[in-house]
């Protein structure tokens, strides 16, 4: 699968040490279009859209950010806390916009699952269908979002 020069440029920005120390691709060796395609199929198999999954994360993000560092109850067995960090980071897809560098830790006491995501993660999923490469610090499996934040579970 051949990448366009624009996709190659985006992948350069996603490499470690360019916009953030570890980059966005983890140990994933697939071209960007391959990563996007695989996650598009995974999301379709869930019967959901990128926008819906991003919307679920956005609700948790907003509640956690509003709590200013306090842990919030996001649903049955679910807690979330937003850790603010200095600075902003741009979207590697290059259409502008800077996102706060803080991160949300979403914990599910029932399954023991933890999800780590950032304001940029939510944007990347909603606007670009990009869940980051396998092994990336903020990679989220679409199925994990759907499982943790399924209807009836959250209280936000």
């Amino acid at each position, binding site marked *: 699968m051949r990448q366009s020069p624009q996709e190659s440029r985006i992948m350069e920005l996603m490499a470690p040490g360019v916009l953030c120390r570890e980059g966005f691709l983890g140990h994933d060796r697939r071209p960007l279009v391959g990563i996007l395609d695989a996650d598009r199929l995974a999301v379709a198999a869930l019967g959901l859209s990128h926008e819906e999954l991003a919307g679920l994360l956005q609700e948790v993000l907003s509640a956690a950010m509003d709590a200013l560092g306090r842990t919030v109850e996001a649903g049955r067995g679910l807690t979330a806390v937003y850790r603010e960090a200095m600075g902003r980071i741009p979207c590697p897809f290059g259409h502008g916009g800077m996102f706060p560098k803080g*991160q949300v830790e979403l914990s599910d006491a029932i399954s023991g699952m933890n999800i780590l995501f950032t304001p940029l993660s939510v944007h990347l999923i909603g606007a670009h269908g990009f869940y980051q490469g396998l092994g990336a610090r903020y990679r989220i499996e679409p199925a994990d979002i759907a499982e943790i934040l399924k209807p009836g579970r959250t209280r936000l």
Partner: protein
Amino acid sequence: MISTLVACVLTSSLAALLVVAERYLANYGSCRIDVNAAAKVIEVQGGDSLLMALRAGGIFIPSACGGRGTCAYCKVKVLSGLGPVGPTEQPMLSGDEIASDIRISCQCKVRNDLAVEIPRTLLEVKAYTGVVRQIRDLTRDIKELRIRLTDPPTIDFVPGQYVQLEVPAYGDSRESMFRAYSLSSTPSDEGWIELIIRLVPGGICTTWLFTVLAEGQKVTFTGPFGSFHLSQENTEMIWIAGGSGMAPFWSMIRQMKQTGNARPCTYFFGAVERRDTFFLDELRTMERQLEWFTFIPALSGEADDDWTGERGLITEVVDRHVSEGSAAEAYLCGGPGMIDAAIKILRTKGFTDDRIYFDKFE
């Protein structure tokens, strides 16, 4: 299929050739950059970005990304000599900024004579080198750096201002970058600066500061920058900070003590847990020594029974302690969430926007 591949290879090769030719063969000759209507004129060899050309001429525009066109900090008003706004600048400029001739200086090449307008305070910014003499853990994720200046040997600044520390290329990063940190030392500590820095998870620069930088190592920085400093008024003031937002206030309070400035001041400092606090003993000692100074630390998370400070979010604590502020000033430093929430509270107490000063970490 083969013809498409051949076309792709040819196009890519031509593009690469153009980049190489631009870099090594294009000769734009000597160009003049007229700064602030001939207040300063810089002669540079054309071809560099405006950001780097100004830097070569001793004018240091704040920039965090090292000229990659991703931070959008290096905005400069260009009055003449540049073509239209380029596609790499467009997303980082508002319509008003474009209409006001603001440009992203790292994305503009100097190819002929230019005229620019730069705030006077930036013309006083210098480049410094120093040696790290002490790195101290203040909390689990906050360090204090004490740096001995070598060239120039001293720096003039006002408490509240910041410097831009250069982080060299290391690990996977291929270019140096700059990050802004408030000065926590006092101007009287001649020949030294101190910085209070909080680790950003996965951050390129703070990871270097926390894991690579060692005592005895040379560092470079530019500064001082910023207009966050105490006004000349003598009215009562409140300070609100969280985490490494302590830095400017740690400088201010010590300078006030040294200079005998007895302006009434209440300092609200917020942290999540006890282990996230620092300088508590020093500030409580100052509170006992200085009758005009009140220090109110607060924990928003779990607090031990022996915690004698306040409990709750710092904004809630401010809400409980401050009744009326229409004649007072407020100074805030910390994350955007805390600052935005605090400003809402302050407005309800009568603080007017022109008396609320803040240094927002974004």
